[in-house]
């Protein structure tokens, strides 16, 4: 049986890319059916198939790396580039919403009362729950770094504790933000203030949930001995993503919550 004479990973044929693309088709068509015809079956089917594809695709990557040893340093370098590029693309995604916020808030129109916050809008006090949320995410940045150091020092118990604490802080942030959304005196329909506030913070919240899920999978893998002290890129990728989510929040807090009040 011939061995490969290179350090790259030639993957087994896999159905997940095409099924993932199909799931995207079902999800987008499902959105159309929901918006225009008030039926959500197709959307549910799309989201379910998307979830199944993600689970199996990422499960296979764990199998290929931890169980089959295909992730050589060369492969890992490629994955690092990939994650950096993905996070960069997400940064540009948020840049758009920040642009929209500044477009409307730097030169408020007469329809808004020529002021920001617009007439009639009572913004949230940035020194109350939003400040607590800032502290929570900053603390979670510390705990995820603590977890990383524990992994490199082969300290299993501390790594598990630190990562679990990080995830709990993430859930705490999400719960507090949910109550803020519920209690807010303004809604997404309240002019451009409502739109910019809820779309920007809403997408951020979605990314917190995604980041918390990624970290949770890492916690499960950490408990199951998948990581070694110098090969744990899945965890590093999750930690990078988590720091990114933290930085976006800091920008949101300083611009929309603080300057924008």
């Amino acid at each position, binding site marked *: 049986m011939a061995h490969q004479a290179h350090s790259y990973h030639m993957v087994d044929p896999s*159905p997940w890319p095409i099924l993932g693309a199909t799931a995207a088709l079902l999800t987008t*068509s499902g959105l159309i059916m929901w918006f225009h015809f008030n039926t959500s*079956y*197709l959307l549910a089917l799309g989201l379910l198939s998307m979830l199944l594809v993600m689970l199996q695709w990422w499960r296979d990557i764990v199998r290929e790396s*931890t*169980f*089959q*040893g295909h992730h050589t340093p060369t492969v890992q370098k490629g994955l690092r580039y990939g994650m950096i590029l993905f996070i960069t693309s997400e940064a540009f995604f948020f840049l758009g919403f920040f642009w929209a916020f500044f477009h409307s808030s730097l030169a408020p129109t007469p329809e808004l009362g020529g002021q920001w916050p617009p007439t009639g809008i009572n913004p949230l006090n940035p020194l109350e729950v939003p400040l607590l949320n800032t502290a929570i995410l900053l603390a979670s940045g510390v705990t995820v770094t603590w977890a990383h150091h524990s992994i490199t020092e082969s300290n*299993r118990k501390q790594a598990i504790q630190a990562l679990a604490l990080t995830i709990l802080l993430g859930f705490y942030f999400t719960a507090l933000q949910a109550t803020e959304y519920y209690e807010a005196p303004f809604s997404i329909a309240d002019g451009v203030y409502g739109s910019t506030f809820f779309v920007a913070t809403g997408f951020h919240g979605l990314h917190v949930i995604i980041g918390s899920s990624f970290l949770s999978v890492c916690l499960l893998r950490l408990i199951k001995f*998948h990581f070694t002290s110098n090969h744990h890129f899945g965890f590093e990728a999750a930690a990078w993503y988590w720091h990114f989510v933290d930085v976006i929040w800091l920008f949101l807090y300083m611009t929309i919550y603080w300057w924008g009040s």
Partner: protein
Amino acid sequence: MQGLKPIVSTESPALIFGTTTKLASDLPATDSFLGKNKVPDLQKLFQKADGLPVHLKRGVPDKLLYRTTMALTIGGTIYCLIALYMASQPRNQK
């Protein structure tokens, strides 16, 4: 000439184990904090030379999940095409 010696080895490849670095499992035997290390067993299972692709390597549970996903996606696509076809028909105005 009796067969040339092959350039590449014809024996099955040695199993790949990540043992060159200190494992998180290098703990004293008494410390089984949250379960024991099953990674070596799984490495053996997933490196079996049975020709199965990685997404079906575990056998029955993998096959079931794959077929379910396939069924939902293909069924969904048919439903999607029908729904889009119907949505593109002009509505009759009274």
